[in-house]
C-alpha cells in the first residue's frame, strides 16, 4: 500500500485522483452528521410542535407528530395567565424582571470590567497582578462557598431580595471572565499608541475614553453576548437573591412547569420554556460567529 502510492507519486504527473462527492466515505460522513443533527434538533422541534397543539391532541397523539390544528392559545396563556403559587399573571412578570436585571447588570459589569482590564493591561501598579490572579482563581471556586457571605453583605447594605442586589451579584461573578477578556484585548492594542497619547498629555481616563473605547467595539459586542446569555440563563443566583415578586424568568419558568398543583398543561409548559429560551436563541442566531468568538475567548484561556 505504502509503496504503491509513493511510487505512483514519483512516476508521473497524473494529478490527484478526482474525488467523487458520493464516495462511501462521504456518505458515511454526511450520514453521521445528519443523524447527530437530528438528536440536537429534536428537543427544539418537539417543544415547538407541542406548544402549538391543544391538550386533547397531546393526550391522544404522538409528541413527534406535527400539530393537526395549530393553536397559539398556549403561548398566550404562558405569557399572560400561567400560575406560580397564587400569582396568575403568566411569565410576562418574570420576563420583565429578567430585563430589569439584565440591562443594568450588563452596563455595570462591562463598565467595571473594561476599566479594570484596561488598568491591568496598561497601568500596572504594585499588586495589580496579584489581585488579578486571585480574581481568576476565584472564577473556579464553586459559587456555593460564596453564596452565604454574599447574603450577609447584601443584607447589610439593604439590597437582599432586591433586583439591584442581583445586579451586584452578576457584576461580581461576571468580573473574572470579563476582566480577562478586556485585559487581553487592550494588551493587544499596540503600546506605541498608548505612549504617544501620554506624551501628548492624556491621562488614564482620557486614553480610555478617547483611544481605547473607540478601538474596541468588537470586544464590547463579544462581552455583551457573553453577559446576555449568561445572566439571562442564570438560575442559582436568581433563586437565592430574589423573592417571588422579583424572580427572574428562569426561576419563574421552573416554578410554573414543575409545580405539583393542578393539571399539567404540557403545551403551555413548552410555550413557556420556548419563551424563556427565545432571548438567548435570538442572540445566538443573530450574532453567529461573534458568539463563537465570545465563548472561545471565555474558554480557551480560562
Amino acid at each position, binding site marked *: 500500500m505504502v509503496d504503491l502510492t509513493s511510487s505512483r507519486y514519483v512516476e508521473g504527473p497524473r494529478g490527484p485522483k478526482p474525488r467523487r462527492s458520493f464516495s462511501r466515505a462521504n456518505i458515511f460522513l454526511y450520514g453521521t452528521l445528519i443523524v447527530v443533527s437530528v438528536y*440536537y434538533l429534536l*428537543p427544539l422541534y418537539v417543544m415547538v410542535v407541542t406548544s402549538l397543539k391543544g391538550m386533547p391532541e*397531546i393526550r391522544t397523539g404522538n409528541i413527534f407528530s406535527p400539530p393537526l390544528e395549530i393553536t397559539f392559545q398556549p403561548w398566550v396563556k404562558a405569557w399572560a395567565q400561567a400560575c406560580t403559587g397564587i400569582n396568575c399573571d403568566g411569565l410576562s412578570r418574570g420576563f420583565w424582571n429578567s430585563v430589569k436585571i439584565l440591562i443594568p447588570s450588563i452596563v455595570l459589569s462591562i463598565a467595571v470590567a473594561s476599566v479594570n482590564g484596561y488598568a491591568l493591561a496598561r497601568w500596572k501598579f504594585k499588586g495589580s497582578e496579584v489581585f488579578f490572579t486571585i480574581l481568576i482563581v476565584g472564577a473556579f471556586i464553586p*459559587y456555593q462557598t460564596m*453564596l452565604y457571605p454574599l447574603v450577609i453583605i447584601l443584607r447589610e447594605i439593604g439590597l437582599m431580595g432586591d433586583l439591584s442586589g442581583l445586579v451586584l451579584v452578576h457584576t461580581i461573578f461576571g468580573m473574572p471572565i470579563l476582566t480577562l477578556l478586556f485585559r487581553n484585548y487592550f494588551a493587544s492594542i499596540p503600546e506605541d499608541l498608548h505612549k504617544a497619547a501620554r506624551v501628548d498629555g492624556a*491621562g488614564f481616563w482620557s486614553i480610555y475614553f478617547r483611544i481605547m473605547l473607540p478601538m474596541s467595539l468588537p470586544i464590547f459586542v463579544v462581552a455583551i453576548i457573553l453577559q446576555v446569555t449568561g445572566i439571562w440563563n442564570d*438560575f442559582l443566583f436568581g433563586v437565592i437573591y430574589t423573592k417571588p415578586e422579583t424572580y427572574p424568568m428562569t426561576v419563574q419558568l421552573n416554578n410554573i412547569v414543575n409545580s405539583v398543583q393542578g393539571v399539567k398543561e404540557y403545551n403551555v409548559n413548552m410555550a413557556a420554556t420556548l419563551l424563556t429560551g427565545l432571548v438567548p436563541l435570538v442572540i445566538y442566531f443573530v450574532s453567529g460567529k461573534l458568539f463563537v468568538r465570545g465563548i472561545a475567548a471565555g474558554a480557551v484561556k480560562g
Partner: protein
Amino acid sequence: MADLSSYEPRGSKRAKRPVSLFRNLSAKIASIPMILTALVVFVGGTAWTVVHSFTSSKLLPKLNFVGLDQYERLWTTRRWLVSIENLALYGILSLVFTLVIGFTLAALLDRKIRGENIFRTIFLYPFALSFIVTGLAWQWILNPDLGMQHVVRGLGWESFTFNPLNDPDIVIYGILIAGLWQGTGLIMVIMLAGLRGIDEDIWKAARVDGIGTIKTYIVVIIPMMRPVFVTALVLIMSGIIKLYDLVVALTNGGPGIASEVPAKYVIQYMFRAQNLGQGFAASTMMLVSVAIILIPWAYLEFGGRKRG
C-alpha cells in the same frame, strides 16, 4: 514612566519620588471593584464559609466551634453519599462522552465538508439555552406516558421501556443525555479551533507516509492538541461540579433522593433546612474537590512554564 504622569506637578517630582500610594492613582481607583471582589468576596467569603463549617450554626451563623462534627455528620448522611456517588458517575461519563463526541464532531466538521456552518450552528445552539430550559425540554421528551417511550410503544414494540426520570437506577443517565445535549457543542467548537490550528503539512506528511486518516488523528493529531484537551478538561470538570440547575429542572433530585447532587445538597441545607453548618461543610467539600482537580493542573500548566 513616572515622569509622564500627569497627576502630579512636575516640579515636585524632580525633587523627590512621590508617595508610592498616589502614583498611578486613577488606575488604583479604577481597580477598586476588582480588589474588593477579589479580597472581600472571593478570599473573604470563601474563608468565612470554611471557618463557619467548623461551627454548629443552625438558623444563623454563629462561631461556636464544634470541630469536625459537621463533616462527620456529612459523611454519614445518606443524601450526601448518594450525591457524591451521582456526581462521580455523572462526572466520569460526562467527561468521556463530551470529549469523545466533541472531538468526533469537530473532526467530522474539519473534513472540508459542505454546510459546515449549518452543522456547527445546529450542534452549538443548545449551549445558548439555560439548563432550566434544557431540563424542561428533556423532561417532556422523556415523559413516560406521552413522550418517547409512548411513541416507541405505539410503533408496535409494546415492551419498550425507557423511563429514566422515574427509575432510581438509571435516572442519572437521563440527566446525562440532557447534559450532553447542552454541553457538547462548546467542546466541539474548542476542538475545532484546535484542529484548525494544526498545520496542513502534518496531514501531507502523514499521507506521504501512508498513515490512514483515523490513525493520523489518534497517533499524531490528538497528542499535538494536548493544550486544547487540557482546556476542555478543565472546562468540563468545572461545569460538572456546578451541576445544579439541570437536576432541579429535570428531576428535582428525584425519584426520592436518587438524583441528588452536592450543589443541591448545599442549597438544601443552607436555604431550606436552616442548617447552615451542614451547608458550609458540604460547600467546603466542594471547594476541596475543585482544589484537588485544579492544583495539579495549575502546577503542570504554570509551575512548569516558569521554571522552563
